[in-house]
């Protein structure tokens, strides 16, 4: 059954009966406690990525690897990142694979990728809350492309750590949308730091946003934060 499913995957495309792939779904569940079988299944899926199969077939493989992939899948998935057609499929899987190699592959891809694809990978690093990506993301806050700078700010706001807050504090992007994203991310970091009990760090961020130079809604949010730090 599983062999037939992999055979079907080679010609699988939009409009094909999805049930032909069910044995693969069932194998993912069945191999949960069997590392060797799981590894064999992962290898077979990765091999499909390197074949000349349809977009729908690669979509299925990436979604499956998203739930069961390991470091073994990373090279093949990372290979998709520069492709305009498959970059997002690859990063969605890498975003959810717990192995550090997945984050590292995405970080390393940042220098190579064109900006539109880079924005996606930046978002995935933020969604992954990847602390080790903070320096790389911090550097991108000053990117000339507002989309990249904005994505970096949002990713740091997703990471919500003291280091992320530090990187954001130093940032002064030119583009208004990037500046707003930085402010939003700083508030997100402060909220997380306060929730984690780091009142001093949270207060420092909030203080910096209560000035008259800030928009009214930012002042309001920051003042609320200051009050929360004071016990309110």
């Amino acid at each position, binding site marked *: 059954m599983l062999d037939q499913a992999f055979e079907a995957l080679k010609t699988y495309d939009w409009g094909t009966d999805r049930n032909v792939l069910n044995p693969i779904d069932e194998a993912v569940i069945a191999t949960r406690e069997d590392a060797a079988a799981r590894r064999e299944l992962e290898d077979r899926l990765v091999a499909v990525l390197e074949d000349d199969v349809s977009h729908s077939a690669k979509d299925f493989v990436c979604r499956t690897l998203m739930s069961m992939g390991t470091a073994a899948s990373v090279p093949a998935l990372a290979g998709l990142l520069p492709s305009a057609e498959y970059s997002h499929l690859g990063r969605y899987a890498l975003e959810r694979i717990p192995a550090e190699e997945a984050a590292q592959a995405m970080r390393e891809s940042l220098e190579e990728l064109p900006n539109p694809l880079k924005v996606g990978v930046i978002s995935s690093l933020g969604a992954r809350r990847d602390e080790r990506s903070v320096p790389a993301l911090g550097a991108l806050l000053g990117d000339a492309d507002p989309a990249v700078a904005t994505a970096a700010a949002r990713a740091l706001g997703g990471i919500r750590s003291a280091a992320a807050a530090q990187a954001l504090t130093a940032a002064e992007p030119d583009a208004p949308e990037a500046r707003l994203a930085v402010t939003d991310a700083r508030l997100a970091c402060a909220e997380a730091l306060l929730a984690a009990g780091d009142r001093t760090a949270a207060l420092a961020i909030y*203080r910096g946003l209560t*000035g008259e*130079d*800030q928009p*009214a809604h930012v002042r309001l949010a920051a003042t609320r934060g200051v009050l929360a730090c004071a*016990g309110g």
Partner: protein
Amino acid sequence: MSHSCFEQSAARIVPTVGVGLFMGAAFFFAASGYALENGGESGETAAAAEDGELVSMILLLLGDADRQMRALAYEQIRNQAPGPAATRRFATQLDKLPPEGQVGLLAALTDRGDTAARPAVIGLLEEGPADVQVAAVRALGPLGDTSDVPRLVALLSHDSQAMRSAAQASLVRLGGSDVTVALVRQTASADAQGLATIFDILVERRAREAIPLLLFAAICDDPALRRPAMQALEELAGPGEIPGMVRGLLAAEPGSEREAAERCIAAVCARIEEAGAQAVPLLAVVEKAGAADRTVLLSVVGRVGGPRALKAVEAALGEEATHAAALRALCNWPSADVAPRLIELVESDLPSEQRIAALRALIRVAPLPDQRSDDARLALLTRAMAMAARDEERRLALDRAKAIRTVESLRFALDYLDHDQYSEHACQTVVELAHHRGLRDAHEAEFHAALNRVLETSEDATVQARATAYLNNETWVRPE
């Protein structure tokens, strides 16, 4: 407190909470001339340092030029920095803020509910703009105590409706076990209107301890007092107070006052949960009453209903002296249980006005909702219609058919659509039934045909508008 004091206080906090916020607030206060009490009060140093800092910040926000910032301060006052020390610091700002700020702070302190704010609130009751005074009066509800009852009662006769409403609301909310006693004391000097309002307040407070006063008022000479007293008793009294309420009923003037008193007693009896026992306490009073009073009380016995009441009324029906009163009691019956007896009376050789009264009662009870099926209810109404000899009762039966929401009721009404003397009433019933979309949609073709006939028949503009709306599957909004 001088500006310099404010600045010193603010300066102590600035390094901790940020320059921008405090500079903004300081600028506002310097520009507006409103001073801030921002220093710690002696003897209050026990307050936690964190709370002290928070309170200081909230005090500054109270004076912020930005309305949203002030709203943030109010939100904090409502929910944060607990304790009377913080409350007093907030409250001391009341006489330093502009009127809008005073109203906002009063509302926040009201919601905070800490009575430590009361002295500052009292200070605003009789001076300043009207809206501030009203807010202060409203704040006294949760923040005041028994000693505030006289001043709030005095405000019940204030010229301003807003002030009267605020005083009434506060008297309802005022806490303390002896508030009812204080309210009752105030009745000694209140006029009839004031007393009626106090009775309303006692009802809203569910002040059962005021029942003796209300029972006393229910038998006084002044009808303007008896009626609200009985209405208050309707809400507060239990079966044990039925004898006292009966005295109130006997004191009521025949006519609308007595009928209202009967309904009050019937409502109290209806709250008795034991099946069939609703009339028991009332019948116990009736049995001990003199002949004249028993005749008067038969009417309320009828309003209460039930098997034991029916037995008493049947007995009275057989006696010449009480026959007419007993018949009225049957006509007041709250349920269709009495229908067979009413049919007997309609078909008897009683004087026509008594048979008509029985028939009208039958038409009234026939559609009342109970364990009977819709078909059974309509069958009884149809029978009553057949017994009617006058147009008035036939029209009444057509009107009552509205209460049975079935397609059979529609067909019942349609039979009278072509008779000039009943057609408008039949049209009214058709549109009223059509008003219920579930019924109308379930029998769409039949209702469409009926509504088209209504359009051809009715001369009433409202009925025509309703029929048109329902034919177009639109909703007709009943006027207020």
